[in-house]
């Protein structure tokens, strides 16, 4: 018994630094954000009166904040499914035992580690009218080549989605690749003996076994998509006509341009709730799908 107690404090000693750290820099701010969200809190003013849930009712009725929520949902609705499907397809390609395939895996990872600011600068060029990569190519193919993508409402959002496909490709691909490589070779041999075509093997052997991996990728991609910021800050500043004003960028303006940190905290909580709800929904829906996949 004495030994056990001695063990206790030795264990606590080792986990204490990280625990204290998380308490101070994760849990305390989390609670403090909740506290701020219940007050009218201006960063440069001394008093911050308690206002109850007024901040929440204000922002939920605010057409600009609702617009930001709408834009975020649009972005998530396109970037997540497209991102997951493209990276699964690319993972299937780089999973092939071919010479030099490792070089491609490395190349595809590069956008994920590159500076987002630098990548955004390059994308500004890609999207420019006349001289940008896309418009110059269109012109070369005989088109007009004059579309100013970042100034056209629908196109600006589409450009952000396209960018997310490249930036997120590497990590998602590696996760799928690990999943594909862990499928036992004998399964494929059995399927081949049963006369399955390659596509059928992928569809009925690989895909069902990848279900847990896919769930993980879908949820992490979703969480990342809700946190879109740098690209918007660098390329569109929420424009044109507020069509790329996503929630995190909206919070940024509320907190650091208007200094309404109480309001911004309330918005953060709304965003947190949205992420949680969407992630939970995905988890439940895909789990059901997983169950069917296992029985079919």
């Amino acid at each position, binding site marked *: 018994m004495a030994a056990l107690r001695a063990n206790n404090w030795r*264990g606590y000693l080792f986990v204490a630094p*990280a625990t204290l750290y998380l308490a101070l820099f994760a849990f305390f701010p989390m609670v403090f954000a909740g506290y701020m969200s219940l007050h009218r809190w201006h960063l440069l003013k001394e008093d911050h009166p308690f206002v109850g849930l007024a901040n929440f009712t204000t922002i939920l009725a605010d057409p600009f904040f609702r617009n930001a929520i709408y834009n975020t949902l649009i972005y998530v609705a396109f970037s997540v499914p497209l991102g997951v499907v493209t990276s699964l397809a690319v993972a299937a390609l780089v*999973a092939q035992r071919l010479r030099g395939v490792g070089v491609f895996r490395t190349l595809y990872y590069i956008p994920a580690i590159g500076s987002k600011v630098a990548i955004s600068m390059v994308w500004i060029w890609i999207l420019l009218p006349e001289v940008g990569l896309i418009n110059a190519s269109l012109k070369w193919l005989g088109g007009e080549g004059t579309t100013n993508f970042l100034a056209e409402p629908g196109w600006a959002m589409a450009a952000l989605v396209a960018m997310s496909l*490249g930036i997120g490709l590497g990590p998602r691909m590696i996760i799928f690749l690990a999943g594909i490589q862990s499928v036992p070779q004998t399964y494929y041999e059995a399927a081949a003996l049963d006369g399955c075509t*390659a596509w059928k093997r992928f569809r009925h052997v690989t895909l069902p076994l990848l279900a847990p991996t896919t769930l993980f990728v879908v949820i992490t991609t979703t969480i990342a998509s809700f946190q879109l910021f740098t690209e918007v800050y660098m390329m569109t500043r929420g424009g044109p006509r507020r069509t790329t004003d996503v929630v995190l960028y909206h919070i940024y303006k509320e907190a650091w341009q208007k200094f309404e940190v109480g309001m911004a905290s309330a918005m953060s909580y709304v965003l947190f709730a949205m992420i949680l709800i969407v992630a939970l929904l995905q988890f439940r829906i895909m789990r059901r799908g997983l169950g069917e996949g296992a029985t079919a």
Partner: protein
Amino acid sequence: MRIVRPTIIYALLVLIALAMVVPLVWMVFTSLHPPHAQIPTMSNLFRPDGWHFENYREVLTYGELPIWRFAVNSFVVTAGVVLFQLVLCSLAAFGFSRLQFRGRDALFFVFLLTMMIPAQVLIVPLFTLVQKLGWLDTYWGLIIPYPYLSTAFGTFLLRQFFITLPRSLDDAARLDGCGDLRLFWHVILPSAKPALATVAAFAFIWTWTDFYWPLLATSSTTMRTLEVGLSVFKDSYGGMRWPLQMAAAIIVLVPVLVFFLAMQRFFVRGVILSGLKG
């Protein structure tokens, strides 16, 4: 498992690779155009009015935006975060994997929960906290509050690795009279070098390329990191002088690229270690 013929696969692989490489090529050639030249077109990209390597010198010595200073800041901050992270996470992971204490699993679960807290909920209160501590616009403010997200991730990753190390190591060390600290320092840590490198590699990339926190936590030009400095650089040219912008972007990109190529296998290992394959 082969779905289509190798030639078709190669064709697809090269096509996707082009999408990654073309922008890089464009950046490099644009950065060598005359500093005040118009944005290059397809026809003159490879034939500038002379090769202006001095663009790099101009960017590196541009008085208003000291890029060397940004680089030093990025380096100090990243090194600080990586070290801090390694100490916190390895100690905790040792406790969670090698020692018995009451509430261990519950506490570990709480650690995992912090991974669910999105950064943006924490940013405003973290800013206020750092302001109260007087750390705004200092290295402390840039380093200390940083790993709030990756502490749990790092601890988790290291714990997963530590539990794969055989118990016989501990027993042998204990017989030799090793206490906890010596077991941790002389036995566990040396056997866990690849896992430590993985945690360090992720912490490095996340910190080096982060934009939001250093944007908020710094206000004076001399405290900016490379990533924030580059955005200021771009704004100061008002979307003009592309050759200089691209020279700056390349200067920012190259160190991470080199680091990534050197540490590549540790990134892949991290994905596999964290058991993400299901």
